[in-house]
């Protein structure tokens, strides 16, 4: 099953902004409790949306440049990119059904 791929400051441009597929980026940090709980849901969705959406995760401690570029000041934050542009932002923990709704709307 597809698992979210680690991305960072170095490869963000290539892996996210230049991706042919829409990309979900899970902004997280090891010290963030809710992030740990979002991660398994994001991993499940990565399996369900394999081939339609690329799933990635970005550690905001190690990659401050990308986090700052998108003004991330709350985690977990999920950003969905299409054609190099963020089209949807989900802040805080949300149940799986809600996340699917965001994905479906972003895919339209």
């Amino acid at each position: 099953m597809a698992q979210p791929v680690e991305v960072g400051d170095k490869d963000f441009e290539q892996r996210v902004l230049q991706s042919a597929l829409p990309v979900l980026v899970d902004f997280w940090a090891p010290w963030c409790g809710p992030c740990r709980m979002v991660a398994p849901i994001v991993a499940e969705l990565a399996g369900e949306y394999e081939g339609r959406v690329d799933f990635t995760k970005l550690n905001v401690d190690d990659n401050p440049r990308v986090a700052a570029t998108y003004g991330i000041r709350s985690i977990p934050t999920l950003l969905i990119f299409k054609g190099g542009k963020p089209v949807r932002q989900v802040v805080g923990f949300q149940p799986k059904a809600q996340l699917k709704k965001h994905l479906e709307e972003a895919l339209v």
Partner: protein
Amino acid sequence: MNTDYEVLIVGGGPAGLAAGLYSARARRRTLLLERGIHGGQIATAGPVENYPGFPDGIEGPELAERMLQQAIKFGMEIEYAPVSGIKLEGGLKVLSTDYGEYPAPAVILAGGSDYIKLGVPGEAELTGKGVSYCATCDGAFFKDQEVAVVGGGNSALDEGLFLTKFVSRLTVIHRRDQLRAEKILQERAFAHPKVRFIWDTAAEEVLGRDQVTGLRLRNLKTGLRSDLPCQGLFVYIGHRPNTVYLKDLVELDEQGFIITDAVMGTGVAGLYAAGDIRHDSARQLATAAGDGVTAAIEAEHYLTELAARQGGLTPKALAPGR
């Protein structure tokens, strides 16, 4: 889907997990339904210092995980689904979720409460852009910045003191001229060089376009307005229960909390409420756990009596080996 449960628990915070532990140990087939993260409010808390047995404190998410594993170890099951309705059918209570209906003779409502938002202009627009409800999640983004906390209870001070690890200055804004928080937290906050208080004051608007730049304040005694420059705002002004779907079934107080008797009964036989969702709750981790235990014991009594009335044929007796 397994629909053969004896005890259903709504909500996986400390109340629900404690209830689950006791019901599972009573060998009742027990399912806990959680809408989001198990652990409830402690899932996003920092170090927990006031739960007995942990003299050095314990991280909220770790305690949540341990409570869950302890209940699962004894046989409790958990599914992640928000409960949106309840109805009575014969002796059964039927819970509806996005993923189907779950019937059981005994139900423990432990859904806790959600934080209350300020409800002022700018708050929703700037959530995630400087407005936050979780210091442990977001505090690190405010290193060397000026941050405000609105509220005067334990959460406001607890989370505020946590924020002092990062921020250059913390301003606590409170509607009254004294705090509700525990005295030990007040002492720490008053003594902290980074913390200052603005009393008798409400936040009227969150300022900023793409990021929070300040707060518009109003002194409730003088009516005078002022702007407080800050880059972050953390809101801790209390909680509201998620009980709208229960209003036709059980008695609620004006704020929507469930009124129970001393042993968690709601007035509907076999239906209990535990933890922060209750009107009388002290809204503490230990009291929530205690409520959950009481509710589970009462549910056990109810199931035993029910079985006796039905001639000893309990669902358990019909399904040996579980």
